[in-house]
Each structure stands twice: as structure tokens, then as C-alpha cells.
């Protein structure tokens, strides 16, 4: 079970309050986790990744274990701590604005 932390806007959209947990079929990767997340919460389709290219939206970042995984390959394995459920996979909106 992978723990996922969503930003406030996406929590509201998905009607959840705390962390969400998703189960992935294969080896946990960004793609597998996001596929499982979107399957469980279809209202999130297109909000994290472009619906057609599958690319991360420009102002969305992925953190875990104090690492910025945003530019890692979506098919790279996630850190062991995330796979073991010790650490969450964090989706957040990048700081922007003024």
C-alpha cells in the first residue's frame, strides 16, 4: 500500500481529508502510483498529468524521502521507504505567484 499526500485543492476535489492509500499491481513507480490514484479518484484525471501526453503538469512536483522526484523517469522504482509505506509519495503544487 502506497501512501500519497495530495495538495489541498486536490484533496477537496477528491473529497478526502488526510493521506490516501493506493495499491499498485506491479513494482511501484510514479506511473503505477498515479495510475492507481486516478483509477480510485477519477476526478483527478488531468490535474496531475496531462491526459494525453501523460507528462507531469508544469507546476506539479513529486517529493518523497526529502528528494525531488519530479524529473525522474515515471517508470523508475520509487524509494524503498515509499514502497514499504514508511514514507508518503507527496504530490504538491509548486510555489508560484507573487
Amino acid at each position, binding site marked *: 500500500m502506497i501512501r500519497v499526500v495530495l*495538495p489541498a*485543492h486536490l484533496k477537496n*476535489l477528491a473529497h478526502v481529508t488526510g493521506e490516501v492509500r493506493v495499491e499498485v499491481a506491479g513494482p511501484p513507480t510514479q506511473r503505477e502510483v498515479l495510475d492507481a490514484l486516478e483509477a480510485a479518484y477519477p*476526478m483527478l484525471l488531468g490535474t496531475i498529468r496531462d*491526459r494525453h501526453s501523460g507528462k507531469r503538469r508544469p507546476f506539479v512536483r513529486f517529493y518523497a524521502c526529502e528528494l525531488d522526484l519530479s524529473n525522474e523517469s515515471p517508470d523508475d522504482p520509487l524509494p524503498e521507504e515509499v514502497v514499504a509505506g514508511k514514507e508518503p509519495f507527496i504530490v504538491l503544487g509548486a510555489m*508560484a505567484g507573487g
Partner: protein
Amino acid sequence: MSGVRVLVGTRKGAFILTSDGKRDDWTVDGPHFGGWEIYHLTGSPAEPDRLYASQSGGWFGQLIQRSDDGGRTWETVGNDFAYSGEVGQHLWYDGTPRPWEFKRIWHLEPSRHDPDTVYAGGEDAALYLTTDGAQKWSELTALRQHPTGPSWQPGAGGMCLHTILLDPADRDRIYVAISAAGAFRSDDAGASWLPINKGLRSGEIPDTDSEVGHCVHRLAQHPSRPDTLFMQKHWDVMRTDDAGANWREVSGDLPTDFGFPIAVHAHEPETIYVVPITSDSLHYPPEGKLRVYRSRTGGEHWEPLTEGLPQSHCYVNVLRDAMAVDTLDPCGVYFGTTGGQVYHSADGGDTWAPIVRDLPGVLSVEVQVLP
């Protein structure tokens, strides 16, 4: 007694303002979707409790929300807005070609007859259609693939399809307007399109009489005169009486003919409203006085409507989708400002009062009259 529901889209959420038919006392409900840009919030003429909202933001993209109970609860519906077939290219601001890239939905136009059928206008300019209550959207590709498409350029706000008029007399006739391509008409339900910009003269483009390239800000139509359209262009207020075949300027004695919205009185097809704005570089009212101008002659002769509106130190704008009329008698007129005020007149514009003063910047205003 009838009720009135005003649907307000803002830069930070949606608000629903309700009153009885007297339109004296108002209830303000919201924000819905707080923190999100609501470019447009509108209701189905066929089923008034069916509402649709275009929800978007720079971080998380485009969403569409649907309500079946007048805005008490909402369901996130389809947001797959794809360009069908070859994407193609249009001109960028600097004149170089650039592929069409979806950014947001500016305007939703529900069918008069079917609550599940809605047209959506996008940026970069495209027209979409759903017939299942916004679960799935398909592009009406002939518009974007019009032979003039590669020469379309964005206006300052983006290359947006912001106006959709569904002809009240002919179900196959649709009008759209795109900044800064111009106005287009389809007589076959979107299968083909005709640029209808003859008579528009735009000093901002090299060929002032070009077939396309005009920065049309808004179109308005009265249901009883489907071949008459009114237009607020970047500069100039225009009208056509032959379904867009020819336009003529009716700016007349306006203090400035730059502006964004235009609306037609619900019961008087020759009574129209605009909000003059100083210029394209000064997006606020002339002299700091917020004045709606009304013409009872279909243009040319205009009178300022000021009672109840700020007549000093007012530097807000009124955006293109932020003015609407109700169908009560007397006709109500409503508009929202970039300063977050929503004003209404319950007497056709003679007097005005704010319904609410401190919302986020208003992007759109629609009105429903409820039984």
C-alpha cells in the same frame, strides 16, 4: 413569485446570488471551488437546476463541474478536451507558427432544448460538444480546421473562443467569436463555418478589412430577431441585420467605443447595453466613472446610466462574459467587475445597486429566472 439566481464566476471561486422576483434582498452563497478560476458558470435553459461550471487553474488544469440541484452539490465530470485529427498551427504573437495547445474552457453554452447538450469554447480556440451531460466532449473540428485557421493570432488574453450563440430559430445555426480571429457562423450544426467579419474595420491589423484577424470581444442577440447581432469589438460597437453578412458601426455618441461586454434587453430588441472602457491600454472607465451606456435605438444614440454606480475614483473593468439580463418585467440587468462588485438594476438600467461588493475579480455573470 419568481425567483432569480445569478451565477457568478470569479478568479477565486463561484458564487450563487439569489433573490425573489422583487430583486431587493439577496442571499450570497459561496465560494464554491474556492481558489479556482471559474471562467464561466451557467445553467441549462431546459432544466434550470442543471448547472455547469468551467473550473481551472495554472497548477491543476481544466475541470468541468455539474450540478443537478441548482448548485447545492456538484459532480466533477469530463475534462478530456482533445484536438481531433491533425492539431495544426496558428500564428503566435510574434507572427511565428505555433501548434494549437489546450489551456482552458472560457465559455459553456447549454442547449435551449436538452440539458445534457452543451457547447464549450476553448483556448486555444476550439469548439467542443457534449451530449451526455459533460461526461464526454468531442471537438467540432471544422472550425479550428477552417482554411483561415493558420492565420489566427491570440488577443492579449489568449486565443480564446469566448462567445457561442445558438440560434433560437434554427437549430443548425451557431455563431462563435474568437479573439483575435473574429466571428464565424455555421449553418449546419458545426460541420462547416463561414467567417462573418465583413464591415469590421480594425486598425490594429495591417489589412483593416481582413477576412479574419479581428478582435471581437462579445456578441449578443435577442431571441425575437435572430438575424440581428450586436458586437462589442476591441474598438467599435457593431451590428448586423443579416446574420453577419454585413456589419455596420453603431458606436455613435459613446464616450469611447472600447469595451468588453454587450447585452440586449430581454423585451426590447433594440435596447442594448455596453460598458465603455477608456482604451486598450487603459482598462478602466473614462474619468473614473463607472457608466453603463444604454441605446434604445439599436445603437448610434446612447445614454449614460449612472444612478447607483460609482462616479469617482472607479478603476475597475467589466469583462466580456460578465454582463447578463433577466427575463422579468421590468428587465433586470447585471454585471460584475474586476474589483469584485456585482451590480444589478431591476428597472432596465435606470438605477443600480450592488448585490455584493467584495468578491474576487468577476469573470462571468449569468442570470436565471426560476419559477
